[in-house]
């Protein structure tokens, strides 16, 4: 059943408002978006079915459900694939190895992903505007410290967990070792395919010589 355009458009308007509010609080993101001014990104989500077009500009990002004209980059995949790309540390690797199908120029898409992934929101201005200079500043400082501590704690915990899993418990091989292994498997797969093709050719030749 098709979604009523009112619902679809309202959802996009809410998402756009939230996104642009976050971008307003992160002024260093705006120059990155301004460089992508003439680009149009098409996101075709297959599960759930949803099409979103992103139009970045120096003022923020405009979201639309339809677009008439050419797009710079079009990506297709499931919602989980898009989440993986949005949060990825290495978007290039995610694009190559992930479940997303990409058409068009990938460089502007990676630039957009980096702008969104490195949002650094400064809450001080809205807090000061609402609560006044002294309380707003102190609350902003407390929030900054809390976020900073949270980030450090999360990074430290991830690193320690990684070390434990790879080095101490030996539950999983290190990332480089795993990638090396996958490369070897891929290479082996290719060689097997070639061998199979050669065997097939020989079989055909034998059959022809008998007849």
């Amino acid at each position: 059943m098709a979604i009523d355009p009112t619902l679809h458009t309202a959802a996009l308007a809410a998402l756009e408002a939230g996104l642009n509010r976050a971008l307003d609080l992160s002024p260093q993101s705006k120059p990155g978006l301004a460089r992508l001014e003439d680009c149009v990104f098409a996101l075709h989500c297959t599960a759930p079915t949803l099409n979103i077009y992103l139009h970045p500009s120096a003022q923020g990002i405009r979201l639309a459900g339809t677009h008439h004209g050419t797009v710079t980059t079009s990506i297709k995949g499931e919602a989980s694939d898009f989440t993986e790309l949005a949060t990825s540390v290495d978007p290039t690797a995610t694009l190559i190895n992930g479940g997303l199908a990409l058409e068009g120029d990938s460089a502007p898409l990676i630039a957009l992903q980096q702008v969104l992934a490195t949002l650094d929101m400064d809450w001080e201005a809205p807090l000061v505007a609402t609560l006044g200079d002294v309380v707003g500043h102190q609350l902003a400082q407390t929030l900054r410290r809390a976020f900073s501590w949270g980030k450090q704690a999360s990074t430290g915990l991830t690193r320690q967990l990684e070390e434990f899993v790879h080095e101490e418990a030996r539950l999983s091989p290190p990332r480089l070792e795993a990638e090396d292994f996958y490369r070897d498997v891929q290479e082996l797969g290719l060689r097997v395919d070639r061998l199979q093709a050669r065997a097939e050719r020989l079989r055909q030749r034998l059959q022809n010589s008998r007849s």
Partner: protein
Amino acid sequence: MSDKETTHFGYKEVDKDAKAGMVADVFHSVAARYDLMNDLMSGGIHRIWKRFTIEISGVRKNNAVLDIAGGTGDLAARFAELVGPEGRVVLADINDSMLQVGRDKLLDQGRQGNIEFVQADAQFLPFPDDSFDCVTIAFGLRNVTDINLALGSMLRVLKPGGRLLVLEFSKPQSALLSKAYDTYSFRVLPVMGRLVTNDSESYQYLAESIRKHPDQATLQSMMEDAGFCQCEYHNMTGGVVALHRGVKA
């Protein structure tokens, strides 16, 4: 028996020449509180309908856009951002009170340079042929005396390949919604109009004029008869509002 041609004004039959003046009186009366009433009547949903219209319009940088019956300038403001400083947006309205409210609002928002304000009748648009990439008319077509004449005039001013978008109240697609909508239109709207603008008659006219407006399929065939191609429509909010789109070949 009178030889004069008649048309409808809400549920009343009036002289064709008199309708424009009667519609003008309605809008002179509500102009000052038009935006507030729109928000109250639709619960703010009219902004979503207009946003969808902008999406479908496909307007881009450097385009020329004509917003007929543009009223308080909701569409024109957004189009002015999209076309950029090299583009052109014309906000046209037959009613000088509405045009004045729209012009003041947009100038107060700091929008100028690429917007023009023109008092014009949709039936006799004062622009050269092939002037615009996109023409829009939102909640205005049902107030026009001769819809066919207006559609012909819009076709004339569009460039080949240009799009016409008609956003207008239409026919709800379910019987239940239709009943609820009728109750709301004829019982609630006039009371709301009386409380906010001290004018219940204008809102009675609004409800009646919506019922007299052609339904989705009829308006589509009228656009095709006027000479538009690739005509289509999108129902919104269960058909309470429909967005028609046609292209000039």
